């Protein structure tokens, strides 16, 4: 049985845009990509996801045709995707505000003839319009940044304190993940998936494996699916704690920083005790888990309770510290309308009035056995709301881990037989779009298997989708707010750059 109902519709290029707009009016524009098939034709694909199903709309371009109608004027979320397609394949979206380089270096784009000579200086986007005027200067943050951060360049335009525009250049650390997948065997693919976004290894491995499982209509054993839930929720707690730690660091809350990073370290240690890896790598495999969780359900619950007491008490103290809250309140505001317009996902969306959480809307894997109640969203849309949403999610995660551990205990308390955690999986050909709720939001794996080999793997990381929203968050915020806004987005740059 298939988890996500996938509907693939192939339409002509003339009807393409109309078809996408129709689908998007009943769902959410989730992703867009292009590819070149064996017949040398280019195809454009759009994924629209709704509560009950995933729609894949595909249109082919004529041979030697490079243009297709841009979706961006009606669907702002498509702006980055169309820029990425332009960078990668040189396809031109007619009507796009500006197809400036995003994931390729501007000089490279120029070499490939995808950039005018006039634009070939090192310039990023001007999608929001150029900022010019007396006293306007630009501050490059990155790619080598102050502190231990991933490489990315933010170019901040300012005329003193206010920030009217932020440009984002994520291309520095591009590793070419998609091209790497094509050279992998189906079994090795999961190892690469774990390293697309290293901090989200479980989410990626689960999405990848789930895709293969859907293709062969196999469900892993219940115990394995519940084990994946425990690993995934611990990953979520670690990621959410990491954003909190970065907030406290930016606010100079030294003790809170020490306390919360101590809790994060304990979570990481628990993860390594469960799976032998601090990032839970190498345990989620197609067909289930390749080893039983190394701790008994009772031991997991005890460990969680131990960590929870200290962690939640510290967080509560932090969220009543006025000097800290002042930095978050009204910082980096994203209105409900903006979040809806750009199809935001994950905690960012849930802080701006969205119920979008596919653990609740389209439950997958172990979540089907557990009572998962969607928390009501926040509406303020500022950094404080995002922090509160994440704290609530930490609580939910703790609850889910307990539930899953209880369920495992009920299945077979003495189950240490590795065989019962994994089923045999026969690789089948086909196309599937697999989705999981990563800590940053909905993660999509678009897998095509042909002749039992990976033909095409396209990963849409939540961070890529949400990053396009980042410049929108600067409204009357000043330079010192930058660190808070960035931390509150909690993005993984590796996933943005690809």
């Amino acid at each position, binding site marked *: 049985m298939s988890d996500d109902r996938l509907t693939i519709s192939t339409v002509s290029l003339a009807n393409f845009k109309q078809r996408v707009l129709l689908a998007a009016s009943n769902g959410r524009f989730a992703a867009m990509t292009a590819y070149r098939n064996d017949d040398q034709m280019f195809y454009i694909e759009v994924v629209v996801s709704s509560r009950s199903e995933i729609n894949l709309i595909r249109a082919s371009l004529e041979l030697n045709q490079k243009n297709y109608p841009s979706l961006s004027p009606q669907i702002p979320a498509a702006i980055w995707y169309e820029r990425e397609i332009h960078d990668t394949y040189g396809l031109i979206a007619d009507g796009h505000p500006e197809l400036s380089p995003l994931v390729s*270096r501007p000089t490279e784009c120029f070499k490939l003839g995808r950039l005018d000579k006039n634009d070939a200086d090192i310039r990023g986007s001007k999608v929001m319009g150029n900022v010019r005027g007396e006293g306007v200067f630009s501050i490059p943050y990155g*790619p*080598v940044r*102050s*502190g*231990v*951060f*991933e*490489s990315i360049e933010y170019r901040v335009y300012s005329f003193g304190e206010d920030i009217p525009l932020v440009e984002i250049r994520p*291309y*520095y*650390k*591009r*590793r*070419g*993940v998609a*091209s*790497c997948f094509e*050279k*992998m*065997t189906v079994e*090795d693919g999961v*190892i*690469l998936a774990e*390293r*697309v*976004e*290293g*901090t989200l*290894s479980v989410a990626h491995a689960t999405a990848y494996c789930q895709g293969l499982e859907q293709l062969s209509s196999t469900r892993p054993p219940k115990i394995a699916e519940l084990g994946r839930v425990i690993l995934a929720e611990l990953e979520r707690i670690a990621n959410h704690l*990491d954003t909190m730690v970065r907030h406290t660091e930016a606010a100079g*809350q030294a*003790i*809170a920083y*020490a*306390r919360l*990073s*101590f809790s*994060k*370290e304990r979570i*990481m*240690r628990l993860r*390594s*005790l469960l799976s*032998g*890896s*601090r*990032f839970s*790598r*190498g345990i989620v495999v197609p067909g289930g888990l*390749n080893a039983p969780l190394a701790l008994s359900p009772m031991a997991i619950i005890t460990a969680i309770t131990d960590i929870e007491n*200290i962690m939640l008490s*510290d967080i509560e*103290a932090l969220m009543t*510290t006025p000097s800290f809250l002042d930095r978050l309140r009204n910082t980096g505001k994203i209105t409900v309308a903006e979040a809806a317009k750009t199809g935001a996902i994950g905690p960012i969306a849930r802080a701006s009035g969205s119920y979008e959480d596919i653990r609740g809307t389209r439950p997958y894997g172990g979540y089907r056995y557990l009572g998962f109640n969607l928390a009501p969203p926040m509406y303020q849309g500022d950094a404080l709301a995002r922090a509160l949403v994440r704290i609530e999610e930490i609580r939910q995660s703790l609850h889910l881990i307990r539930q899953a551990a209880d369920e495992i205990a009920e299945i077979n308390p003495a189950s240490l037989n590795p065989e019962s955690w994994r089923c045999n999986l026969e690789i089948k050909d086909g196309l599937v779009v697999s989705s999981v709720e990563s800590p940053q939001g909905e993660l999509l794996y678009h897998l095509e298997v042909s002749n039992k080999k990976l033909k095409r793997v396209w990963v849409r990381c939540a961070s890529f989708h949400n990053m396009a929203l980042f410049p929108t968050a600067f409204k009357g915020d000043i330079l010192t707010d930058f660190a808070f806004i960035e931390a509150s987005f909690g993005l*993984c*740059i*590796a*996933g943005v*750059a690809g």
Partner: protein
Amino acid sequence: MPWITRGLRNGIVTTRYPRRRDGYGEGFRGAVVVKGYLSDQASGISSVPIADRSEPGSLQAEHRLARQLELLCPTNAIRADSDVVRVDRGSCILCGRCVAERGDIFAFDPSIEVAALSRSLLFVPELTDLEHEREHLREQLGKKVYSLRRSIYVRHIDLGSDGAEEWEIAALNNPVYDIARLGIFFTASPRHADILLATGVGASNMVDPALRTFEAMAEPKIVIALGTDAISAGIFQRSDPAANGIASILPIDLWVPGSPPSPLSIRSAIFLAVDLLPKAKVKEKERR
């Protein structure tokens, strides 16, 4: 005010390493080793013969086995010929496939002191005749860092990592590892930095920023390649544009395998780089 008393709760949580062993580090999946296959425990890890030559047809069987072992590894970290099986830790991403499939030959080692002074020292069991090289490198590095012993400033640079290495580096600041108490600090400016911690596969777009960062550092300066990705690009060896680690971009003094290396590994690597690791410790490590 409530934060002050809160800060004192839970007592001291900081690890005693390197003065004493760290229990957590001991239980950690740090590296892959080749086990003594003939169960000669006394010799520890040594070159492992993979077949008994006296049997007829053993040569083909040897070759077949060698090939099988090499194919186990998704990143070509296993080098087997008719005499020896070696693991190149610089390519090993700790996926554990070899340990799962051939537990008789490969095993996980809880070692946290995995850093090596040259690329060729990352092979286990060790390539022969490296004793001299190691001594030489250690001496050279010792001379280079002589002036750096008390307070060391570290600058991190990401050349295309997966983001996990950054977490583990940042973890060094948490109270469990707390490297500031040992006189090691992170700095924002490469001008102040003594050590460059470089992570990532060596993405081509980062070459210029990396070189500029390196040039901005004052002498003496040390570059640490952190993580298997940085050493050999790991699973990204097959990516396009091709990546092969950062050795082709920066001159590397110290190689730290791991995917990602644990905070304890990173810290012991920094100690090794600035010659702070107690000598006995190093000896013990070398015996391994």
